[in-house]
């Protein structure tokens, strides 16, 4: 991937991490299950949806509204990229 793609890729994860850290006072790892580790509650789940929609100008509807898409920072970033029509960034794509 190009340096520009790299920067953009990192910034989605970083912005999500910044939000989760501000709300929970704990900095999560990108692959940490926020629900299983007690950082996120069912109420926080909806705050995550609204945060992603407002910050990344996407609309999360239909079958995308599943907890599995919000369990980790990685999963949320992947959802945002897919909804923005960007191809999944898997290694050297």
């Amino acid at each position, binding site marked *: 991937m190009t340096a520009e793609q790299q920067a953009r890729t990192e910034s989605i994860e970083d*912005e999500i991490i910044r939000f989760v850290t501000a709300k929970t006072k704990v900095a999560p790892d990108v692959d940490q299950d926020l629900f299983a580790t007690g950082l996120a509650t*069912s*109420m926080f*789940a*909806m705050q995550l949806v609204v945060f992603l929609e407002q910050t990344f100008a996407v609309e999360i509807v239909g079958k995308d509204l599943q907890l599995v898409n919000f369990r980790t920072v990685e999963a949320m970033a992947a959802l945002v990229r897919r909804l923005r029509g960007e191809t999944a960034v898997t290694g050297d794509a």
Partner: protein
Amino acid sequence: MTENESVAVLGAGVMGTGISTLVAGQGLPVTLVDVDAAALDLARREIRNGLRHAQLMGAVPADRDPGALHTTLSLSDIRKATAVIEAITELPDLKAKVLAETAAIVDPGTPLISNTSGIPIDELADSLPNPGALIGTHFMNPSYLIPMVEVIRGPRTSDETVASVLSLLTRLGRRAVVVRDAPGFVTSRLLHPMINDAARVVAASTASAEDVDALMHGCLGHPTGPLRTADLIGIDNLVDSLNVLHARIGDERYRPSELLLDKVRRGELGRKTGRGFYDYKETAE
């Protein structure tokens, strides 16, 4: 259960909005009434979000279309309701007045369901021509996610009303536990003084709100801790409910603590104003 079933909800605050989300999410039509047009505007947005939240948490059947939502400033629009759920402000005189007005509009025998946090059902029943139609249901917030409901049977509540409300709750996918009438019933009688004491602990600087909640969660298994619960309930409603309980039980534990009163004066009501014991603004500062 008839095909024409439709539910009216009175009061478009925290609870009326959540209960309307539950009813619509389970596929029944809802008419939501408030005296405040801004509350109805906000409720329509919140119900849209609530339906998405319910879907996110797997709390609504994926294959069911939501029931139609009608919001109105006019109580006379609920004439055809087959059940009325009252969720207006926790002020006994106001509730008695609105319940009496409602009884004069709907078909006789229509269950009138009060979502009061703690006013005895029999006290509210005094204002009604047919006290047998009144029953209490204590939905929790958010109603569309919490599967259990405390049901309060007053001494004059009729068997038909009990049967009809239990069947409605089953239709809404809720589990009911029926209790007798008393100030605060079971859940508010136990929860409200605990939250009040948690606020006193914070005011005395024994521990921060975060630490109180962390201990209640980590040591005692409380799902979120009492102060996050206070923010979810709404601190203005908490104070109203404590006043109701204090006036009827007399125990000083129910007198709203200074910190709670202070938060109400500052407009820090919890989630509904974006700030209470915690901060809830959606974007990271």
